[in-house]
Structures are given as structure tokens and as C-alpha cells.
């Protein structure tokens, strides 16, 4: 049997009376590509924020690689191997594209303060390695031509790709993508989805992907969870999801 990488049980969070996520039960096996879909305001982003430690669950447990991550700070969770992108792009916008990626190598840097200040020991070799690996990532996402541009001057689609490149630089085991195709045209979207499947294989990643548009995820995800009003109303293969009456009702509204 494949091994479980992330497991959430009974996770709920309340925002002043509103239960944004309730009794969230789910798991991801190592190597899977899972979709998390649901209508506007269903609680998808909130689920990401709970997994990455931005919010603390009111109840429930979350385990990553067999250890509980509830109560851990976001940076500790990233250091354990979960990296994410943001729905509302959060790049380091005044910095260069290259620096955006370099920053994310942070937790893998071994040189200490003394080596930094006096530029001895591992400083030069590690900085060189960071620069090379960053350029490699930028090349994968076709951003190497923009390496020295300010991130804020990139076109929208490129900014979304940079967010993914930056998350990968943190060398995660699990990658969380929050609507990575939002605002892209159909052609860009198609390329992005192909790229996601490709990097998953190339980096041996496990991926959890939020998408608004159901048809998009159908093609590439192995399993899909559907969220509505903070609750999981269905989970299964794309085919099962497509035929699930609950899901059809949630997406088409009342009648079905």
C-alpha cells in the first residue's frame, strides 16, 4: 500500500460564528496529485491556511509524514516539507525574479552568521549553488529571460509561474497550489497544467491543487475532493466526481 503523506481528521475552524471549514477529513498519499474544488467561499483557501499553519484549527488533527503539525508556525511547516502558492499573488514584488526564488532556498542554507559577515567557509560555494539552482528553476518555468526584472513588472501569468518556481525552491515534499491558473487564458492554462504534471514526476512531488473550474482538474488529478460550505461533500476519481449527484447539484444549483 502507498504511504499517507498528509492526513487531516475532523478539522474545523470558526471565524466569529462562521464555520469556514467543518469536520474536514482527508488524506493524500505520497506521490498523488489531488484536486480540491468547490464553489466560491467554500473554504478551500481556508483549508490551505490550516494545513500551512497560517490559521490554527479550532478542533481536529493534522499530520504530515506521520507527525502532528497542529500548533506549528508556518515557517516550521515549510521547513518540514510543505510549500504553497497564494491565490492573491504574494511575490516579493520590488525584488528581482531571481531574488524571489533565491529567498525560498533559505531553510536549506547552512552557512552561519560569521561565515556571512566575513565571507569565508561555505558562503561562496553555497551562494553559487543557490544561484545555479534558482536559474535552473527559472528556466523550467520559462522565466530565465526575466531573471533580473522586478517581479512586479512580470505579466500576470508569469507572476503565477514565479510563485510556483519560488515554492519549489523551498524543496517541498508536498506542494499546495491555490488556483494557479486564475486569470490565465485557456492556452496558458493548458500549458500550466501540463507543466504541473511534469514537475510532479521530475521532482517526485505530491501535489494538492485548488481549482475553481472543475473541468480543469479532471484531466490531471488522480482523486478529487469537493468542498461546499466548509464540508467535504464528495471525494473520488474524476469520473466518480463527474457523476456524483451532490456535486452536480452544488455546481449547477438547487435542481438536480
Amino acid at each position: 500500500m502507498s504511504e499517507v503523506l498528509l492526513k487531516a481528521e475532523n478539522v474545523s475552524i470558526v471565524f466569529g460564528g462562521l464555520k469556514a471549514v467543518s469536520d474536514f477529513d482527508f488524506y493524500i498519499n505520497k506521490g498523488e496529485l489531488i484536486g480540491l474544488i468547490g464553489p466560491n467561499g467554500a473554504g478551500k483557501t481556508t483549508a490551505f491556511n490550516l494545513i500551512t499553519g497560517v490559521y490554527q484549527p479550532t478542533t481536529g488533527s493534522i499530520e504530515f509524514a506521520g507527525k502532528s503539525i497542529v500548533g506549528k508556525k508556518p515557517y516550521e511547516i515549510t521547513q518540514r516539507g510543505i510549500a504553497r502558492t497564494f491565490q492573491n499573488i504574494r511575490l516579493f514584488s520590488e525584488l528581482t525574479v531571481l531574488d524571489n526564488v533565491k529567498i525560498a532556498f533559505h531553510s536549506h542554507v547552512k552557512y552561519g552568521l560569521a561565515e556571512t559577515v566575513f565571507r569565508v567557509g561555505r558562503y561562496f560555494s553555497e551562494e553559487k549553488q543557490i544561484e545555479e539552482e534558482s536559474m535552473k528553476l527559472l528556466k523550467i518555468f520559462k522565466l530565465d529571460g526575466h531573471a533580473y526584472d522586478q517581479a512586479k513588472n512580470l505579466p500576470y501569468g508569469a507572476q503565477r509561474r514565479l510563485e510556483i518556481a519560488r515554492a519549489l525552491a523551498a524543496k517541498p515534499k508536498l506542494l499546495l497550489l491555490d488556483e494557479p491558473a486564475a486569470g490565465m487564458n485557456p492556452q496558458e492554462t493548458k500549458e500550466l497544467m501540463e507543466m504541473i504534471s511534469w514537475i510532479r514526476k521530475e521532482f517526485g512531488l505530491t501535489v494538492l491543487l485548488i481549482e475553481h473550474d472543475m473541468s480543469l482538474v479532471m484531466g490531471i488529478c488522480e482523486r478529487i475532493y469537493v468542498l461546499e460550505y466548509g464540508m467535504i461533500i464528495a471525494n473520488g476519481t474524476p469520473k466518480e466526481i463527474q457523476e456524483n449527484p451532490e456535486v452536480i447539484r452544488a455546481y449547477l444549483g438547487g435542481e438536480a
Partner: protein
Amino acid sequence: MNLLRKNDLIMLGLSLVIFAILQVLITTKVLTSFWELNLIIIGINVIMAVSLNLINGYTGQFSLGHAGFMAVGAYTGVVMTTFFHLPFIVAIIAGAVLAGLLGFLIGLPTLRLRGDYLAIATLGLGEIIRIVIMNLDYVGGAAGFKGITHHTNFAWVFLIMLFTLFVIKNFVNSSHGRACIAIRENEIAAEAMGINTTKYKVMAFTIGAAFAGVAGCLFGHNFYIISPGSFTFLASFNYLIMVVMGGLGSITGSIAGAFVVTFISAVLAPWPEFRMIIYALALILLMFYRPQGLFGYMEVTSMGIFRRIFKRGHES
């Protein structure tokens, strides 16, 4: 990567040449003692501005209490040399350590605050430090600390300034410095990239405070008497002005800012009644025409002519 080391050496060489020229001018009395004093003040202000820039400009934490740490360094230093007869260098180190320690203790709880709230809290802490010193009879209270041996000279200031610039430049051009800059740019994203934001905010604040302590120690030993009145929040404003005038997040900018501010006030010294009026107007006009400061985020090493000397080493 040897390129970076080469750039460092070119910089060091250039600095030493400038130092030698100025030192000769001072020894041969071509520069009067008035201008020697101003060179010393510029050097001290550069240390203050660059260390404040690390906190405000690079890490984006709005601190208005920098003069408080300077006071701690100054008083620690003069106590070391005057009461304990320790060597000057020991006094400088002690000033740095004590100011840094205080920065750490203050930074830990207060750096949770954001923006203007942090600004007023640090301003208040700077004032508290000054008022406490004012009430310590051991160091002379409000009347000031008297009987200091004059240790500070141009050579000490220049070399320590160089050291400070070297340390802070290397810090900001490393993974640690990038962590600080990431916090300035977007704290939530920085945290999501595995950066312990609290640790780096406190680290920047501590390093900045320690160098303010160094500057304070140099400042304290430049006179025969120092008093708490030199370290009010208006002094902190003055260092902030240097940083913003030069450009937040630019070391070159902080040097320029410290130079321009000190130079303007030296040149206007003969007209005391107009000095501050002109200074105020200059400040307002500068903000109108260059709100991002003289250098923005730029460094001199990444500009036109210097590009050729300092080949692409991609230091920001």
C-alpha cells in the same frame, strides 16, 4: 564568485586611498579642526544611518528609537574608559554588546507590533532609556557625564565605519539578509518560504542596535562631556532623515544621506537663525522631487560607470 571577493578588494583599496588622503589633509592642517570634527561626525552618522537602514530599510521595521541605543553605547563606553580605565577598543566592544543586548530584549516583545504602532513604541523606549540615564547619578544624571578622555579621532571613526559598512553589506547580501528583505516585502510570503520572521526581525534589530552602540561610544569619546540631551527622539528623527534622504534599503544612500545632512548643517553653521529653516525647506523639497530618496534601492556598485569596474556580481 571570486568576482565578489575582487569587488570587495577594489572597494577596500578605494576606501583606504580616500582615508589616506583625508588623513594627510588633517595632519598637515589643510583641513581645519572644524572640518576634521565634521568628518568625524559624518563617520559616526554613517554608522548610525547604515545600522538604522538595516532595521527600517532592509527589514521594513519602522524604528524611531535609534538614539536610545546610541546613548547606551556612549554611556557604557565612557564608564569603561573613565571609571575602569579600560582600553578604548574594549569600551567600543562593551558598548556594542550592551546596546545589542538591550536591542534584543526590547525587540523580542515589541517587534510583534506593526507599522506606526512599532514606530511609537520604539520612540517611547528610546525616550525611556534617555530618562533612565538622566536619573542615574552614577553617570552624572541630567547634568551629563564629565571628565571623559578624548579617544575618538578620524582614524578610529573611519576604520570602524569601514568595518560597519563591510559587515552590514555582507549581511544584506546573504541568505540572512535576503530573509530580512523578504520580511519587508511580504511578511506572510516570507514565513511561507520557511523564514522565521520573528528571529530575523529581532536579529536585524539587535545588529542595528549594536552598531548604534558602537557609534555612540565613538560619539561619547569625542567630547569631554556628554549629556542625555544628545539622545532625544529628535536625534532619532535626524538619523531617520539621513536614511530616507539617501534611500531606504541602499547602503550607498545611507552614506550619502549622512554626508549631505552633516554637510548642510556645517555649511549653514555661520547663520544659526536660518540654519534650521533652510534645512527644513531642503528636506521638504527633496521629498517633493525625490520621495524615494537620492538612491532608491540602488547601490553605487550597480550603476553605470561603476558597472565596468565592478563587473556583474549581482549584489543588490
